[in-house]
């Protein structure tokens, strides 16, 4: 894929992303507070986030017990840091730092 095609790829993804973000504003412009939609808006995002955490874990290609243990440890560190400090940057850096150290430093 050359540079022009790569830019086209970005534009395609941009349009798809914008559609998902704009759809409720366009489709539901008249209904400002629909109670059923409010309930969806409250419950669905965290459910989707659970699915996305699983999706992210799938992309880590956990193919050994060591790698699984490292992933579990890194997840635990993210949760613990976030429970104590509630500081997104710290939680993300802490968990990722441990994971990178395990992969690169200990060859897991």
């Amino acid at each position, binding site marked *: *894929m050359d*540079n022009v095609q*790569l*830019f*086209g*790829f*970005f534009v*395609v*993804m*941009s*349009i*798809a*992303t*914008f*559609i*998902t*973000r*704009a759809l*409720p*504003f366009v489709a*539901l412009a008249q209904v*400002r507070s629909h109670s*059923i939609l*409010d309930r*969806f808006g*409250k*419950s*669905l*995002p*965290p*459910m*989707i*986030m*659970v*699915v996305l*955490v*699983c*999706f*992210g*874990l*799938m992309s*880590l290609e956990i193919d050994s017990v060591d790698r699984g243990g490292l*992933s579990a440890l*890194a*997840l635990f560190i*993210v949760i613990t840091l*976030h*429970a104590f400090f509630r*500081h*997104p*940057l710290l*939680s*993300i*850096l802490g*968990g*990722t730092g441990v*994971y*990178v150290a395990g*992969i*690169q430093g200990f060859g897991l």
Partner: protein
Amino acid sequence: MFGYIPLGMAFGVLFQSLGYHWIFAPLAGVVIYAGSAQFMAVGLLAAGVSYAEAFIATLVLNSRHMFYGLSVMGRYPTRGLSRWYLIFGLTDETYSLITARPPQSPGNVHYLVYLTGLNQSYWVIGCALGASLQSFYAFDSRGFEFALVALFLVLLIEQVRTMNQRWLLAVALSTSVLAYLLTPNQFLLVAIGLCLVTLMVFIRTGGDHG
């Protein structure tokens, strides 16, 4: 503070594995501006998928944003350029920052635009830093992909705080396991679809009073 600079850097570093000029990483941040979709794009580009596949995959991955719109609709301006920029910039991070604060009057548009614009700036700077550093120093980036999992987990913890029916999380976990076992290639579509159906049945039967 925002996790967008280190996360953008992680994207930039991963993006460089594709071998394009580093300027395309911040360009992706300007044009697409979707954290998880950009990470996914690296995988899609590496796999050489078509435009159509990329379009569908992005729709599915970002379908959660439809429900973000529902919860911030009342706070957004009803017309003007700022409305469309705010919709364009409604990322996971921006959504969680906006909804973490009490609802504001519609007159507070400047604050929303400022917040969204600041977030995107951090993200673009992060993408540029990661990709340019990687192209000049070529450091070892193995393991950086965990940043995405950590981001989703942090967002999940934040959203769970304001959730009433937490058993629905177990439903989401079950649909994920089911989708992983049955249709690993259509994981997101099937898992999120099953969540949606379960939630619809639950709300229709009047179980949700939250």
